[in-house]
């Protein structure tokens, strides 16, 4: 049994935790954190599944993909943060309540 298998499993766990929080948490900052946790989980799976083979040299392709993914995640987080701040400014709370409540 390869002990490195723990890493992708943790990655999947992070993905699921993030998914649960994204659905259940009403506050937008928490939703945003949840998305970032999911992202970290996916990156972990991407890089650590490749590590399963012990002897051969590391596969650099997932590493490069993750760098791309991280830049995308930063960009998305920045954009979402601005949306959240503007929503909080305009409605008084950083939540996506249903329009008919207002």
């Amino acid at each position: 049994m390869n002990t490195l298998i723990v890493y992708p499993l943790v990655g999947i766990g992070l993905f699921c935790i993030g998914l649960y929080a994204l659905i259940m948490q009403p506050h937008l900052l928490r939703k945003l954190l949840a998305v970032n946790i999911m992202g970290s989980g996916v990156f972990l799976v991407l890089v650590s599944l490749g590590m399963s083979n012990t002897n051969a040299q590391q596969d650099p392709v997932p590493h490069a993909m993750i760098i791309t993914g991280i830049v995308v995640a930063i960009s998305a987080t920045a954009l979402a943060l601005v949306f959240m701040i503007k929503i909080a400014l305009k409605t008084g709370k950083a939540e996506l309540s249903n329009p008919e409540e207002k």
Partner: protein
Amino acid sequence: MIIRIFTFILTLLLFAGLTYTVLSLPKQTKGLGETVSLQMHNSGVSNPVTAVLMNFRAYDTLLEMGVLFIALLGVYSLSTSQKEKKPLLQSSVLKRLGGILVPLLLLLSAYLLWIGAHAPGGAFQAGSIVSATGILIFLSGWKLDLSARHFFVRLLIGTSLLVFLLISAVTLFLSHTLLEFPPSYASAFIFLLEAAATVSIGVTLFHLFLSIFSQPKEEH
């Protein structure tokens, strides 16, 4: 409450399914490590990750610089006041520390950019250090007018995409294939791309921080 339990069960099932999938994978997964190492001598650099990022899959990196640029545009489009950016902290310690750290940080970022060709490092790491330096300067209370109203600042933000386009044009002219670097010039092309990317990433990340940080806290 029912929704909560339902979601919980659903995510649990997802976790179980994915765990089963991962465990079912053969131990010896076939990646592209070997293919990459066979072509490393043609890539112009000796760090395989940089080779993938800036040569084999440089097109992905071009689009990714586009994503970063779009995020900045989106943030700008919603930024209200660009005029007053008051630093949050007024601390003389921070000011002095900043004075010592800024040159060191810039040196570190230049080192990371240079070492990226051979070892872990490269444009993204160097760019994040540049942006961190900018944030440090800003927090220390130093006046730094980097508003996007100046053409020069916009040019810095666009540098990476411009250099990418320039190199695309050169490669298309040379071989009719986008981003095909001749092996003897590959390292020069890659260095040019990385240097430009460092500048753009640094300035863009700094601006993202600045615009979000200086959003007004109340509706005016």
